[in-house]
């Protein structure tokens, strides 16, 4: 019965006045996956997530979370997920302890062992007022609050932007360690970010969104297999190369760098036919794929 997608978005459009923030987006997140949602600032990531949470209503299209409509069954949906936005705010007069108790009061389940463990790990003082916390500490507190209910879905919207590298690492280790270690079929992560390299190892599958439209959806391993960087060095600057399926070709003197999109073998064969001194290939990381995705054909209206 676990086959109901955790998130199912179909032809989602959300307009602000004349601006199409999200424009016909579809994606599906299966249970137990860690799904990356990549896009530049203003691509429509936060708008999409807000539609999942019924903080915004879709202009058209459908959104389902756990197979339910967040507009009609808001409580049923929200009781099974937690959300960490990019900027977190707490009541400034509450202590860390008070804030967590307040959050726990809305939840049917709250894991006190995980709470104690994470507070110790982050070095958060339970008696400190929320107003006295640094940005990093506020994010840590939000993460504690998001993990202790042990939700089936953890929604993260740019969770690590603006944090120092150590806090960022701890954040990701916590998502992997404290959150993912539960029942793996009921631990789904949906993370929107442009700090992709940090989440690289965590991501099973991803969608790149551009101007509100899906540009690329792939399994992470398959993507690293498909997108490669091929470097070749020649004794003479080569004549014009005709390389099928190349995303981009850069030539500086005797060296050529090609980004391939699924046709590495053909490109390497073509380059080798030109008698290179050396040919080297490496996979693109997800971040490099994101950067290279601007070469993919732009979605058309």
């Amino acid at each position, binding site marked *: 019965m676990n086959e109901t997608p955790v998130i199912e978005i179909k032809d989602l459009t959300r307009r602000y006045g004349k601006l199409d923030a999200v424009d016909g987006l579809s994606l599906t997140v299966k249970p137990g996956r860690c799904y990356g949602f990549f896009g530049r600032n203003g691509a429509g990531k936060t708008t999409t997530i807000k539609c999942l949470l019924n903080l915004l209503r879709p202009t058209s299209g459908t959104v389902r979370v756990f197979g339910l409509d967040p507009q009609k069954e808001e409580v049923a949906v929200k009781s099974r997920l937690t959300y960490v936005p990019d900027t977190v705010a707490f009541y400034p007069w509450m202590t860390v302890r008070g804030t967590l108790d307040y959050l726990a009061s809305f939840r049917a389940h709250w894991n006190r062992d995980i709470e104690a463990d994470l507070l110790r790990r982050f070095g958060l003082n339970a008696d400190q007022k929320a107003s006295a916390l640094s940005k990093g500490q506020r994010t840590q507190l939000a993460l504690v609050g998001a993990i202790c209910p042990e939700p089936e879905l953890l929604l993260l919207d740019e969770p690590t932007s603006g944090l120092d590298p150590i806090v960022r690492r701890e954040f990701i280790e916590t998502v992997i360690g404290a959150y*993912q270690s539960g029942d793996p079929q009921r631990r789904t992560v949906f993370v929107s970010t442009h700090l992709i390299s940090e989440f690289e190892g965590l991501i099973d599958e991803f969608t790149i969104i551009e101007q509100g439209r899906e540009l690329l959806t792939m399994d992470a391993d398959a993507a690293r297999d498909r997108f490669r960087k091929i470097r070749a060095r020649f004794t003479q600057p080569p004549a014009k190369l005709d390389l099928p399926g190349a995303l981009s070709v850069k030539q500086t003197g005797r060296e050529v760098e090609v980004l391939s999109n699924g046709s590495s073998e053909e490109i390497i064969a073509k380059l080798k036919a030109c008698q290179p001194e050396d040919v080297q290939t490496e996979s693109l990381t997800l971040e490099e794929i994101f950067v290279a995705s601007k070469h993919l054909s732009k979605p058309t209206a």
Partner: protein
Amino acid sequence: MLLQVNFKTGKPVYLQLVDQVRYAAASGGLRAGDALPSVRQLAEDLRVNRNTIAKAYAELESQGVIETLPGKGCFLKENNTPFTKQVRQKLLLKEIDEAVVTAHHLQVDRETFLALVHERLDYFESKQEK
């Protein structure tokens, strides 16, 4: 044993881990009965999805390299493969053929190739004995 992952090789992460454990087992980095890090520990250390680690361990277990003792964790098994002699040789031939093809293209001749094979066998054996 220190495991690491590299996203630039194009090889799926779980296979990288499988290969590293197999290498460590062949070169004495891991001995029969040695414990592997827990899935959670390794996932946190490498900052890799815990499902990826679980997949690597499941693969190693199906290959008979490690065994899971409930409640205790994963341990390296005595080196006794579940495959028959014929299957083992067939599996190895595929790998040898690839090395032979590479040697041909790198213009490494038969004597040098065989000498290298002997050298590597000695290297792994000497590391295991230590």
